[in-house]
């Protein structure tokens, strides 16, 4: 069994895992960080999006062993103690969720989006970029609003450059 070592939400972790362990299973079962969800198991729905070395990816398409040495951020790594990340706050303010199942992946994709576009996000870009995240209850409108608001909040609080 390969030994994998990586940094998850700023903490060094390492474990012996079966080679075929998916990153999402490693995060959920081994590390007990269950904010990252599994919705479809076919890399379509986006509930499992995390950041690996600063890039958004679907953690059900990646082996834990492929992330050897990488720095991983999950939804649990966004808030600072009791202070929600501006994007989390924006989802709460704008009611960008109903059942909440897709929300961790939505927020991880949203933060990645803002980082890549430097906070200049129009509605059309947000909708295009949400291609890889499915929500079955909100109809997306409030999610799009939340991301636009979160983008502004991240920019004005200087978090775009900081992360």
């Amino acid at each position: 069994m390969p030994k994998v070592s990586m940094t998850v939400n700023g903490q060094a972790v390492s474990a012996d895992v079966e080679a075929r362990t998916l990153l999402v299973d490693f995060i959920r079962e081994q590390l007990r960080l269950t904010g990252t969800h599994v919705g479809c198991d076919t890399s379509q729905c986006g509930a499992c999006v995390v950041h690996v070395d600063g890039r958004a990816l679907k953690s059900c398409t990646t082996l834990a062993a492929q992330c050897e040495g990488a720095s991983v951020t999950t939804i649990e790594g966004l808030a600072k103690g009791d202070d929600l990340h501006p994007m989390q706050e924006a989802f709460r303010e704008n009611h960008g969720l109903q059942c909440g199942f897709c929300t961790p992946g939505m927020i991880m994709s949203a933060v990645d989006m803002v980082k890549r576009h430097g906070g200049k996000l129009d509605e059309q870009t947000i909708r295009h970029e949400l291609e890889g995240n499915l929500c079955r209850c909100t109809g997306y409108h409030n999610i799009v609003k939340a991301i636009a608001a979160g983008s502004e909040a991240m920019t004005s609080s200087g978090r775009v450059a900081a992360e």
Partner: protein
Amino acid sequence: MAAYFRPTTLEEALAVRAAQPVTVLAGGTDVYPIRANKVGWGDMHRDDVLDISAIAELKEIEQTADRLRFGALTTWSQMRRADLPEAFAGYQAASRDVGGVQVQNRGTLVGNICTASPAGDGIPCLLSLDAEIELASARGRRTVPIQDFITGYRQTVCGHDELVTAILIPRPPAGAVGDFLKLGARRYLVISIAMVAAVIAADDTGVIHHASVAVGACSEVAKRLHDLEAALLGQPLASAPDLIEHAHFAALKPIGDLRASGHYRDSAARDLVRDLFVRLSAEPKRRAA
């Protein structure tokens, strides 16, 4: 229990490849979904896994005077952001619509052609760019034109001891502009019903001197439309949409499946080619954005 190999050099990888049957793993965006039927991709109990994603020498895009070389680990995201000649605008447009950002960050251009799905969006793009595929094994290296690399439905000439190491594309002719259009049941995250890629170059007077047009998802393997290309040469670019004839599509053999009927695909392919020519003739410059 199956073994897992994660070499950091091509040489080590080829030694593993030669020694035993392995599942080659690059971005994993095709390998995982096709095995996600909860038996998990349990094949790993049988086949060892050769993860090539840590081989740095396969990650480069190189541009020289006569050609461009895309290392086998070039991702869709790298493609969409790269600074490339105008002829690549179609391939770059395709890369923006493959599976969403998260899939583009992992999925590779080479994984797409090795999967060799009739609906693989990269394949018509590579046909339109006259790409060659570079393969390596412990025995040596060879290059194969893209039209010979894919031999049938999910079949390629890549041998059991070989790995694809790069996509090679000759520098396109002066003034060549590329474009790509895909039709799916909806706008996003969708498998193509039909797609078309073209690279066309016209001289200062607007006369076409280079044309390559390829259609995907309308035959087992995507096809160039050589008769259509011949009909375009020497003609004004502005007239391109009017030069399309039914007979130019004879090479295609569209089938009916759960996404569309053969008849629908047949007419969709013609409409897509016409729409693409209208775009190319309306705005021959600047389409990268």
